[in-house]
């Protein structure tokens, strides 16, 4: 799941790439969130929480990270539930991508299925967790972009107690989040989309172990007349150093009739908000061209879903 690229700094070599075993570390298993938090506090800044391990273990094998201690939180009860009431959805941090994809929630809210079912491959999806993915702060991960689209809140618990952080404030920079030392992501919360609202999340990727080259999420609410956009959220993944909330693109659609012209304007605005990096997946110009297509496509699928059509979609290999 890791691109060596991102750890290369110009003028320097790609060092320590040919490792496959982590440096020695101590392993602890926490029985509860409280225990995990106190263990992390006690063990200091060399300790990391281990959930599904699909990012952390890879980093450790490549020696990008050499923690002294791992606090295994994977067996903490009650952190992997996927539930909703009439207003709100709540997903436990330890819910795996695979379980989310197979959940009744994913059937109810297709955009969640689009995202969860397209992450990496089946092996990764059955181990990797939504909380771990979010805490990694990787701009290419799918969940942060999706959760921006759904305007989610991140539930955290740390030595100072519990708090809720809006997704926009949670991811601060490349691999940097608002999490404090010893603080865990315990869950995700977002409002159940209202009637006449539906979304789509689409990504282009080269192969299963590669992150998407670019992705876009759109959550659209239609007005009574069914042709006008009442509300919309648009977010982009792999489009900059953090997921991008394309507010200018939203403004092109909100309150407007949905037609080729307005959608194209929104796509343009989304592209203008993006700042993709040059890497082995493509040049910035190429990624912008992809983002334009992705936004258009996501809006199109969202409109069809708003109108009650069932559209199967997931990441597209190219």
């Amino acid at each position, binding site marked *: 799941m*890791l691109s060596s690229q991102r750890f290369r700094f110009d003028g320097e070599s790609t060092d320590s790439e040919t*490792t496959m075993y982590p440096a020695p570390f101590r392993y602890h298993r926490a029985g509860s969130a409280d225990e995990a938090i106190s263990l992390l506090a006690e063990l200091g800044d060399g300790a990391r929480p281990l959930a599904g391990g699909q990012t952390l273990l890879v980093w450790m094998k490549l020696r990008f990270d050499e923690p002294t201690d791992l606090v295994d939180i994977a067996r903490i009860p009650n952190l992997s539930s996927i539930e909703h009431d009439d207003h709100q959805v709540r997903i436990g941090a330890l819910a795996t991508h695979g379980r989310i994809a197979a959940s009744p929630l994913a059937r109810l809210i297709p955009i969640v299925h689009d995202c969860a079912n397209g992450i990496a491959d089946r092996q990764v999806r059955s181990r990797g967790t939504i909380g771990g993915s979010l805490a990694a702060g990787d701009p290419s991960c799918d969940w942060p972009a999706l959760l921006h689209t759904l305007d989610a809140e991140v539930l955290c618990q740390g030595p100072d107690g519990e708090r809720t952080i809006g997704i926009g404030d949670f991811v601060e920079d490349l691999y940097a989040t608002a999490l404090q030392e010893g603080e865990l992501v315990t869950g995700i919360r977002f409002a159940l989309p209202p009637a006449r609202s539906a979304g789509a999340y689409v990504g282009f990727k*080269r192969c299963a172990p590669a992150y998407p080259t670019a992705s876009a999420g759109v959550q659209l609410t239609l007005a009574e007349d069914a042709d006008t956009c009442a509300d919309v959220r648009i977010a982009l993944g792999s489009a900059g150093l953090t997921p991008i909330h394309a507010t200018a693109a939203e403004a092109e659609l909100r309150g407007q009739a949905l037609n080729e012209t307005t959608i194209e304007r929104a796509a343009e605005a989304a592209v203008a908000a993006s700042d993709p990096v040059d890497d082995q997946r*493509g*040049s910035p*110009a190429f990624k912008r061209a992809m983002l334009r297509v992705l936004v258009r496509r996501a809006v199109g699928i969202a409109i069809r879903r708003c109108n009650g059509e069932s559209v199967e979609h997931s990441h597209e290999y190219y």
Partner: protein
Amino acid sequence: MTWVGKSLRRKEDDRLIRGRGLFTDDELAPGMLHLYILRSPYAHARILDVDVSAAEALPGVACTLTGREVAELCDPYMQLAPGPAANIRDLPMAVDKVVYQGEPVAAVAATSAAIAMDAGLLIEVDYEMLDSVMDVEQSLQDDTVLHDAAGTNRVWHGVFDYGDVDKAFAEAAHVVRIDRLHFHRYSSTPLENNACVAEWTRQGTVEFLCNNSFPGFAQQLLAPGLRLRTDQLHIRTYDVGGSFGNKIWNYVYMALAALASRKAGGQRVKWSEIRTEHLLASGHGNERTFLDTEVALDANGVLTAIRSRHLDDCGAYTRYEPLGCVIWSQVTPATYGIRNLRIDFTQAVTNKCPVVPNRGYSRMQHLWFMERVLDICAHELGIPADEMRLRNYIREFPYETPNGCIYDSGNYPAMLDKAKALIGWDDWQKKQAEARADGRLLGIGIGTTLDSGTNNFGQAQIMNPDLPFSGNSEVATMKLDLEGQIVVCLGTGPSGQGHETAASQVVADELNISPDSVYVRPGFDTAWNTFVGHSGTYASQFAVTGLSAVHGACQKLKAEMRRLAAFMLEAAEEDLDFCTGEEGPELRIKGTDRAINYWFLSNLVNNNNAMLPESLADVTLNVRHVYRPPFKVPDTERKFGNLTLTYAAQLHIAVIEVDRETGRPKILAYSAVDDCGKVINPKIAAGQVHGATNHGIGAALMESFNYDEIGNLLTSTFSDYCPITSMNIPDVQYGNIETPSPFSYNGAKGMGEGGGGPLHTIAAALQDALFAEGIIIDDSHHSPSRVFDRLQEPNRDRRVSVRSG
């Protein structure tokens, strides 16, 4: 009942599916040590100091190895190149200088792989960085020289001049000039990485379990390198998870494992490569640039002459090179009747991973060049793709090429017809017209290619007249074992091609028994005495060399069995039939029920021989046959001679649509027609065609080794290199025709490499899609990002010019 030609279920699969195979990394033994190789992070640097003291102090570490120690214990590998490049000192570990990123600089053997890695990271190496040479044209300037002992980066240069090129250009109706084409660097990334287990015994021999795919050659490099006789090496392979040529030079790593075992006092040492090491430093395919190409054509678009300058980038060491400088000439005119060619060929080193033979080795690069040339000419002259091919194909066989190679058989127009039928050619022509009317970029491309098999190693002498190589050979040994079983040993060392199955089919037909009664030992083992210097699986030759050896061994064994049976049954040899009776395989007197079974025959020789007469004293029921194809040493002055025995052919058609907005090429339809002469096992052959096709599609659209300007490999993980997976593979319509080879006993031609068909075909389809946009397809790699960039910046005006009249 004949078994050859049937899709017999693979004998190998039973153990593989049940998890009972033995791949090298499966080997475990108490006390086994694990080797970690520390590799250079720099592409070009001087090694000032290597300090292993901290590594050696780590508990669990048995020993370390440094380049200086390796230089004391080893002799440099034989160099194949003539001239200054012969002075390149190639040792399994860098001594004073590293010349590519990933080159071994030190190693640690420890009680676990994890401890070895921890220790390896404690080794301190001081480097002084040097300027990197990352481009072949820059390399040839010799401003920075990689190998001081050679004094130049140029490895090899030669001119291949056939026919009367100047006259053909003087008489040409059209001359097309293409200033530059480039074939990119990729490899085959076999599922199983390189691995070996080595034990330097107290008797001074070395035991190897490994996955080398050309053990005949490896022994000849390893033994002198380690200062041993070849007989002191015991090399074994068992199950090997693919090679595609890439595992030919893992003898370099076998040497390091052996030296570590020696230093550790004879403990067994395992080295198992990880994927990033494989991508960085296990061998890449040859990268080639074609400059200043000029093509002469007559008024009908028939190619009459080509002159061109080819620069091959072989990476940091020569290893199997410069053989690639000649091997392409097995297919000099490709599938076309062109008689006049002048190719000025140069190879140079650069600070990249050394190259290794890679599926389609060297011929593919040249075939891609020829296909691009023909295809670009067709577009420039406005001749339809199929028509252009039909006007240029070779039609009479056997056909002697301008450089003396004999194409054994073929029928390219029939393959074209079949591929068209499979893909629905006429229908796609209509759809293309409609798509174009809508402004869509839809292209249809044809690629015709050759998979030349069974090398004449005499071609090495064209490259270096002093090399003591020529011809080719392969061995099979066969015996009637104590209990009457047929046991066959192969010299081929397969890597997944189903040799046990195919050999069983041949034996079954020869003895008129069931393939179930034939046991073919898995893998390769020098202790079987079933090898020659050419032994291995490479260059598409098993169906000819391996099976001819098996066939020959059958004849020898049968002759002995017939003599024995004739004596015991008191019958004439010619009255005996090989058949299967109630008690299993036997020899029977024709038209009677008098027979002798295999157990009885074997027992006579092995346990009960007092009754045998003196006239049967030479019968052992244990035979060895060496097959030698009928080759002559080529004329090295003229660079002329028959370089390969058989020429399997592939013809592919692709329909591709390029998304105008993002440049994404999408394959809408694909057909692949194969002609490998007589097919031994259709299912295995089809599997190889699908495999080669998918790999070629991956190579064209996804897989590429990209370096930055200072020599960092940017695609050193599968996330970046992106080998093709089932998620990217289009539905391939497969078909075949059979034009039996007149040069093999069974009519078969070697196959499996596939000649890079998809690289030619996808380039042609993209050309067809993008020609109207002013784009010339000048590279073999077409990532969507690259196609997108090309759409923004058409290149036809600067790439190609046409002079007519």
